[in-house]
């Protein structure tokens, strides 16, 4: 449904961005020439197993403008050969926090009805004779929820794993979350199994509280904390009475509580459920475990949002709002026919709500709306 003319304009906008940001991308990727690159072009075709030389990078980018651009977390001897022949030499340790994988977030959506070339928004129970489609919307609230997970992740990396803050590279993913790249030498050689242990340490996957060996083990001490603070989520899993009993044990000491749970099958399995569901960091584990994973290129543009995968300093994290801070620096504005856009803070101010009207918006917002089928007819402002 995306019109060719709009796509061409977006492609040009991307090309121009890449022309100006080539060096920034090169300097953000450690060991650039031992990475595999991959991209989705503006016809939606995925191309893989590409290796690039730094000095040819700009001309390559101008010729093959990526709509979505990825590099391998891995370092290879032969990045462009097929998987078996690449010769794996190591990989960054990466973590992906994405709203798709966050349980307590309900994505904001709008349902539209596409009937031949007419599009309308379906309120509650509207009739639709054509193709009904649910469209995901970005909102600040979602980013804040993702940020909570991100902060938990960083805390564990620093405190438990002793990874220095300067080795932790935090990025806004360009889409609906955050990426963390740990570039430390010592982690590069870890195989999938070791990464799985690290992932499980964060998510608490498969935990059985009865196997906890130390009351200071993180999942158990977080659980004790939740009990002490009377965390609201406790009631999602336990009855008042159960909470009361466990708190009594905990008041004696942590050991007592652990011993008690070891003997109580029902409460133990409820605790396991609570710990994985409410206390674990919600990362997309596959990304961490897979040692040949492709990950979005730092400072590339996200094809569905027009936003930059931008690096965030730890100190700025608190203030960081992707919808204003991850827009390219030389953003320009365009005129666009908008089917629907809720009120949203984007780049430099409030936009919308728009409903079947023409408006002047930042180009990235136009990309976002066009790629979702919520807008068309980009014109110079």
């Amino acid at each position, binding site marked *: 449904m995306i019109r060719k003319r709009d796509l061409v304009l977006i492609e040009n906008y991307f090309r121009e961005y890449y022309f100006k940001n080539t060096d920034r991308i090169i300097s953000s990727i450690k060991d650039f020439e031992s990475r595999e690159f991959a991209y989705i072009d503006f016809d939606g075709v995925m191309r893989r197993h590409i290796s690039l030389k730094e000095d040819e990078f700009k001309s390559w980018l101008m010729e093959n403008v990526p709509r979505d651009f990825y590099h391998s977390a891995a370092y290879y001897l032969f990045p462009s050969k097929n*998987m*078996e022949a690449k010769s794996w030499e190591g990989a960054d340790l990466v973590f992906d926090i994405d709203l798709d994988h966050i349980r307590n977030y309900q994505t904001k959506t709008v349902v539209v009805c596409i009937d031949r070339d007419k599009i309308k928004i379906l309120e509650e129970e509207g009739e639709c004779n054509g193709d009904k489609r649910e469209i995901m919307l970005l909102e600040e609230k979602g980013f804040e929820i993702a940020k909570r997970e991100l902060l938990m992740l960083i805390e564990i990396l620093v*405190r*438990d*794993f*002793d*990874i220095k803050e300067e080795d932790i590279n935090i990025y806004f993913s360009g889409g609906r979350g955050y990426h963390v790249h740990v570039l430390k030498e*010592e*982690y590069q050689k*870890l*195989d*999938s*199994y*070791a990464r*799985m*242990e*690290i992932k*499980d*340490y964060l998510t*608490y996957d*498969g*935990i*059985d509280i*009865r*196997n*906890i*060996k*130390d009351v*200071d*083990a*993180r*999942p158990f001490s977080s659980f004790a904390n939740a009990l002490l603070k009377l965390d609201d989520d406790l009631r999602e899993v336990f009855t008042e009475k159960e909470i009361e009993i466990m708190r009594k044990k905990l008041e004696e000491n942590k050991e007592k509580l652990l011993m008690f749970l070891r003997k109580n099958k029902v409460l133990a399995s409820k605790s396991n459920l609570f710990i994985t569901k409410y206390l674990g960091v919600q990362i997309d584990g596959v990304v961490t475990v897979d040692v040949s994973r492709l990950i979005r290129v730092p400072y590339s543009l996200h094809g569905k949002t027009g936003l930059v995968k931008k690096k965030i300093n730890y100190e700025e994290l608190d203030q960081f709002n992707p919808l204003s801070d991850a827009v390219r620096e030389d953003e320009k504005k365009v005129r666009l026919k908008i089917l629907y856009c809720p009120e949203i803070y984007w780049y430099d101010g409030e936009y919308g709500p728009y409903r079947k009207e023409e408006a002047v918006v930042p180009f990235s917002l136009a990309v976002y709306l066009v790629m979702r089928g919520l807008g068309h007819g980009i014109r110079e402002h």
Partner: protein
Amino acid sequence: MYISEEIRWAAKYPFDSRSKELLELIAYDVSEYTEDDLRFLLDKAYERASKALDHKYRIIWDNDYQEVVTFYLALLIIRGVEEDYIYRVFSDTEARRAYDLLREEEDKNILSIANNLGFKVEVEKDGRFRLSYIEFIKVSRELSAIHWKLYNFKVEAGRVYLNKRNLARLCSQRIKEVIYEMIKNIPSVPEFILSYSNRLRKDKEKMLRKIERYDFSDMGEELFPPCIKWLMDRIGGGLSHPGRFTLVTFLHRIGYNTEDIINVFRRVPDFNERLTRYQVEHILGMKGSRIEYSVPSCKKIKSYGFCFPDENCRYIRHPLQYLIKLKKRERHD
């Protein structure tokens, strides 16, 4: 340190680098053990090797010197059997023996063993030990997956906190590998030792036959029920969780051990041993936590979508019944 203490040490931990040095000082040339007055040591070594294959060992003895020498002679006898499985069982038993001794050991001694095994361990004031969590992950993978998950332990500033027993267990894992390597690295075995090896091989014939039975070459995969065959055919393309679960529990039930099951998955082109081991142990390891997983019923398998019944599937409710049925038929034929 007095020489008697050194020998005591070697008697307890003959695989330790310190002990190996000592042995060069005190041992006779191997051939001399055939002399009448030393031959009894060879018999003792034989006994040690044979018992070890039945998972038996001792932690109390009265002559340190003999305890050291019999270990080294037993290594030779084991090597002469030329059977990887035997090497492994022997290493495993000897590592268990070391574990029992280490558990009771003084802090400074267990530290010395740990360091010689390549672990960089520190002791805390409260008697707990600290080990780099990365190193921990690298060894713990060989142990029961559910008990040795990193999250079961306290981790702080890049270190895992362990008590003496935990550390002894990690050491014994490494010790097993060290002893196995010691056996493998023996280039050749003298003639007179080989006679002991052959005797041992005869003695353990039953045990060796048992492993042969689990050998894939005559496992008769062609007799497996259709659902399992279907899964076996698709290992290469990756199995869904219920698929892997069904296959692993099935193979386990008919007598495959963890290694055997991992070998089945070895056929996959991008086989990842550690990942597979982890997944298999995860499924089988549940036993330790008292949740025993059994092979899913036909009804379950049907709901998973890989039940493709053939004529032998009639009147059965469980894939294992399929095998039983075929076996019965065989007897009647």
